[in-house]
């Protein structure tokens, strides 16, 4: 188990006062059975607004809902939390062989939030792509288990892609980023999700944080100064979900902290909003994660 103290600060400047609007924030770590416990989490907004609520969305993510008053010129959000990660770091592969996944899925009669059925087929930002499907096919061999498929595809993608914060934006689709072979964690994750789905493996997009200070003797991981994204693949009834970080070509255990998961970035975007911006908007955010003794 690893215990973290986590702090997120988001700052927006508006060149001209905004109109009224609604914003959703998905930045709070969520409890995940068997994987993550949230000891405490708090969020504050400055200026504070009267009309604020919280709900849990379909996929179990905590959502802060805020009605913004008109006339804002800046906005600051602060989130602090303390989280325990309890991932099982054993590497025992009890995942289903790829060919066995379809009958297991057919027998899986559930559409609750952790059901694999949500994560097949295409979603708004991860449309079917013949290119990504062909790439995925080239990186697997017959009779692989789902975990092996995840590993091979993830490593292959990591070799194919170059980490480049300038190449893409939050609106870039999986296919566009794949063609450029450049992007950030969001692009890596969305492409891998698309590849896995093309193989019939249910795959979710996970949003969260990555520890900033590496454990002693280990290199600092890319994307650590920001919010992070990775992939969650369904590996059959027995093994369930397996998390993989294609940006760093590794399985996910306790260096990552979950906020939520969904079909693609759109389901777990940290900020979703309708602020009517007359002028331009500039924002910055920072994440501090400290492993507690």
């Amino acid at each position: 188990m690893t215990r973290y103290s986590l702090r997120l600060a988001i700052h927006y400047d508006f060149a001209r006062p905004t109109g009224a609007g609604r914003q959703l924030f998905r930045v709070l770590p969520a409890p995940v059975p068997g994987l993550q416990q949230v000891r405490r989490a708090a969020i504050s907004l400055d200026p504070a607004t009267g009309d604020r609520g919280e709900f849990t969305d379909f996929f179990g993510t905590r959502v802060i809902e805020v009605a913004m008053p008109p006339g804002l010129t800046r906005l600051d959000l602060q989130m602090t939390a303390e989280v325990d990660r309890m991932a099982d770091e054993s590497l025992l592969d009890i995942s289903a062989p790829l060919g066995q996944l379809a009958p297991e899925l057919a027998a899986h009669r559930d559409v609750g939030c952790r059901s694999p059925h949500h994560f097949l087929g295409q979603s708004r930002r991860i449309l079917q792509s013949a290119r990504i499907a062909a790439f995925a096919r080239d990186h697997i061999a017959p009779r692989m288990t789902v975990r092996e498929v995840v590993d091979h595809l993830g490593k292959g993608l990591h070799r194919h892609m170059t980490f480049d914060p300038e190449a893409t934006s939050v609106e870039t689709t999986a296919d566009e980023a794949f063609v450029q072979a450049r992007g950030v964690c969001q692009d890596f994750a969305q492409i891998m999700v698309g590849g896995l789905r093309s193989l019939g493996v249910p795959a979710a997009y996970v949003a969260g944080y990555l520890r900033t200070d590496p454990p002693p003797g280990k290199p600092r991981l890319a994307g650590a100064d920001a919010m992070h994204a990775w992939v969650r693949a369904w590996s059959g009834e027995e093994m369930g979900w397996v998390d993989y970080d294609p940006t760093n070509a590794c399985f996910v255990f306790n260096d990552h902290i979950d906020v939520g998961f969904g079909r693609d970035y759109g389901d777990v975007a940290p900020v979703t909003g309708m602020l009517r911006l007359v002028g331009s908007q500039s924002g910055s955010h920072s994440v501090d994660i400290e492993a507690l003794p």
Partner: protein
Amino acid sequence: MASVQTGGQAKGRDRGVSAYRPLPDVPDELIGPDGLLRPLWHQLISHLQGLSDEDLARATGRADQYLRDSGVFYRQYGSGQSVERPWPLSHIPVLMTEADWAGLSAALVQRADLLEAVMADVYGENRLVADGFLPPSLVAGNPEWLRPLVGVRPASGYFLHFVAFEIGRGPDGKWWVLADRTQAPSGAGYALENRVATSRAYTDVFAGQNVHRLAAFFRDFRDALLGLRTDRDGRVAILTPGPMNETYFEQAWIARYLGVSLVQGEDLTVENGHLMVRTVSGLRPLDVLWRRMDGSFADPLELDPASRIGTPGMVSALRQGGLTMVNCLGSGVLETRALMAFLPKLAQHLLNAPLAMPNIATWWCGSEAERARVMADPSGLVLAPAFSTGLPFDHAGESTLAASLAPAELARRLRDAGATLVAQEAVTLSTTPALIDGQIVPRPMSLRVFLARTASGWQVMQGGFARIGATPDPTALAMQRGGSAADVWIISKDEVPAVSMVAPSSGPYRRSAPGALPARAADNLFWLGRYVERSEGIVRMLRARHIRLAESGRAALPLQGKMDDLLASYGVDGSDGIPQGLLDTLGAAVTSAGQVRDRFSPDGWSALNDLDKSARRMADRVTAGDDAARALSALLRKLAGFSGLVHENMYRFFGWRFLSIGRQHERAMGMIGVLASLADAKAPPGALDLCIELGDSVLTHRRRFSVATSRETVIDLLALDPMNPRSVRHQIDGLTEQVQTLPGAATHGQLSDLARAMLRCQTEIATATPESLDTESLIALRGTVAELSDLLTEAYLR
């Protein structure tokens, strides 16, 4: 073949009845299986046979005239643009006996209950998936299954309040369901319009035939909507996607008929969990929303982020239980074609009874057994997308005849994408009589039947909306091509009570306060007032110019140059007979009016459209000079006609106020502009007389001033005289009065910014003299008046 007799009254013409033959193996409404005319039809058919060709043309003409007069149209999309089309009415109603209708109604009520139960489950516990009655991918992969709504319980206790079913008769003569309409069913308003039009054509037959009235259905549904409010002052509105929607006319029409407001997504906002309308009186809560917009568009924040017509926070308002939506968001999932494969078993499971009316036989190709069935005998099957919500005869190209595919190709499609496909029995429809070129001939039909949830349960409209095929081809796919709509008469053995929308009064009479005016509607009314007035100003100016051109035969007079400058300030090229700039201004008036059609009488709308169309027709042929002057006079009369209709008939409340404010504001601006240019000390000869002509004040001037026209008399009459309805002073006085009655004009004795600016402006003009109001002051005054528009917009129109 038995002969067709019409009850011994075979006078007049045959109208093709003796040659009328049902298609082989296709049931027909007019001719029974025994080959005889069904008794139900005797009266109508003999009436038709009794009419001369001229009388028949007059009868059907009355129906068409009604539809034109009331502005019934539908919007058709194609080749990149959309156009309004006149409503294609089939002039023979579909007749049904009360007993047959009762049977059909009971079956559809059962189906509505079944769909309610399915909806409650897929947005609740999802037991149907867990227990194997629905495949999980049919729910989880369904684009109409809106995840944010899962777990949201409707405030009213029910998800569905208004549904429709598209039904047809199968080859055995029995009814079956072709499609379920649960998202935002359209057609009920058109059914009512078809009824009015058809009863105009056959007044006597209609009166003598005990036809069930439609009004009771609407009255009860309106009462049901009002009953869903959480308090007596709560509001009910219809949510429209806007004027570009194909059935916007119907939405505006129903809103007017039911007396509820029509709102667009941008009219609404969510405050502290409650849905609010932006009105000229501030935010007002809305309790009940009849949604005519597809669910995923309703909230860009939690549903489709690309939606530009939704309201951020709508889902949140539902989640917090302060809003009843008809139907609840997410109800589109019930329209899924593949669901039909499971409904027979679901009826047994959920209602403990078989489906009282079957739906089209459907096989979801996501399971092996179904795929094998389709492969074994693809003949007579149509292959379509499993998640399609289209009607069997909409969405051309979506469906393929399974047998038209090579077996290997069919097998490949089923193997690769079975879960996304359904196979359905190809639908063949029955026929009903239609009147084509004066002859009665069989045409295929399907019926849309409407159900509303009322205090006493589901109520079925005693009538419906019939689609009539354009050709005799009875396959459902052929219905895509053209076709028309017909009324449906449910005929009782007994006399039917007449019903009107006005409910019998129970309890003391109470005049209800008019609803608050949505800010967007106010904005459109304000601009409608401005554009119509601006059009009038332009027309007067153009007419004056063309009269002078006709008289002098020369365009280059100094006065012409002044007029051209004034016209150019409105974007109008004075040298054309009917310039494009004028057509654009009229077009803008029509667009503004189109946004608030629920607040207009059909007469007002027709008058405005007639004006617009006349101007466009004239533009093609009118030449400069005398010809143009006469055409412009005709337009001026039409403008006066529209203004008269509106100002005589509009209820004197906020809507009328904003329209009047727009008109007065524009008139003040126009007149100041004219005076600043033409009453200037350096204006060319004839300019002062032109002012008086443009101000439509020639007679008044002659009567009031026995002296020659001078700058002083002109300024006095057209700027300062409070009694002259064309003067600037008159507009400012009118505006001041209107502004004082707007909400929030004065709070605790404190004037609003607008009211204060208004008062300043009025004082300025009331204290001016012809001498002091020189060109420079006129230009300054124009700036002050222009500012009023900005203040008004700021205060009320956002």
